[in-house]
């Protein structure tokens, strides 16, 4: 019979707080972007029936940050979505550190593998 150690529980509580912080920050940025976006484009016709693909200013990290700094609503929303995507990645990175503190090196290796896959996907696709 195995029960989670005190450390396991502590890790889970910190991970919970990390996820909530990331999601709330992302939501706050998206809401701010939404206000700017809806104030400017709220009375336009919504057209998502035909796929055009988003322009480069909304598909690259540099393009999104550039647009957000110029107070473009859609770019600010996209920045919030980037923070949201980064939240699970941060969770995995934190888990690697936490397993190392527990001297559970098998799980450090497993976690670093997952982190490597995530970073490859996020950075390799641009």
């Amino acid at each position, binding site marked *: 019979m195995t029960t989670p150690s005190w450390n396991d529980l502590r890790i889970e509580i910190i991970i*919970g707080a990390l996820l909530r912080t990331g999601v709330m920050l992302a939501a706050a940025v998206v809401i701010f972007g939404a206000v700017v976006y809806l104030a400017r484009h*709220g009375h336009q016709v919504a057209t998502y029936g035909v796929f055009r693909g988003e322009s480069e200013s909304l598909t690259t990290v540099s393009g999104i940050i550039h647009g957000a700094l110029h107070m473009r609503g859609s770019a600010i929303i996209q920045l919030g979505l980037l923070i949201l*995507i980064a939240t699970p*990645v941060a969770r995995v990175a934190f888990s690697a550190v936490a397993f190392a503190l527990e001297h559970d090196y098998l799980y450090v290796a497993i976690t670093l593998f997952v982190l490597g896959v995530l970073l490859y996907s996020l950075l390799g696709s641009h």
Partner: protein
Amino acid sequence: MNVLEFSALVGLGSLLAGFLGALTGLGGGVVIVPMLALLFHVDIRYAIGASLVSVIATSSGAAAAYVREGYSNIRIGMFLETATTVGAIAGAAIALRVSGNAIAIAFGLVLLYSAFLSVRDRIEHGEHMPSTKLAAKFRLNGSYPTASGMQSYNVGGIPAGYGLMFGAGVLSGLLGIGSGAVKVLAMDQAMKIPFKVSTTTSNFMIGVTAAASAGLYLARGYIAPGLAMPVMLGVLAGSMIGARVLVKVGVKVLRYVFATVIVVLGIEMIFNGVTGRL
């Protein structure tokens, strides 16, 4: 419909989707794609992009509430994420080459099968499983809180569960969904993990799996901010309400809700695949 009305309606629908997603461990994505495509006539590629974002919000938002309850098992989650993340990248790569209709039909069948299994077998597993060498090596066995104190459980069927998890990752990368149904199928049915643990650990893993393909979708222009905004905010609010309900609802009720939702979704996926809408 102007952007303001569109955002409000999509936000309300997403709130409901997020609620159901968190309640069942399915994630909001499987509800979001049919809703956007059928109800709002959104192009399927935009629907998938918005869905993928909502999947991360659902998982992270609900997981924050779950971890405090002590149901989820972070080692099971991390161990299986090695399969789901690689699968998600493979799925996103396959998405460039395979017809979406064929995938939709196959996924619909998987959903119906998992609904059948979850209704047929109502015995709570765990306490009667012997500990395997593999489960001990990877420290997967654990315990969770019940009304009568902490209940320990052992994990079985690891190779089968791991294989199913890879498949769940492929489907996630392919359709932009969380594949929560397949994840729960793997943990609940193949690995005999107690239902509340498998549901919450699945929800916990969905965000990481979705993040593995999210960068790819963003770069391809599948994520439209004006659409993703009401979907993400609605799903997030809904998932947080759903996470609170989970703790109060019994395992039996949870299974019936779970089975009904995935049957409806399975039929919807097959219908969309056959009629060539995806």
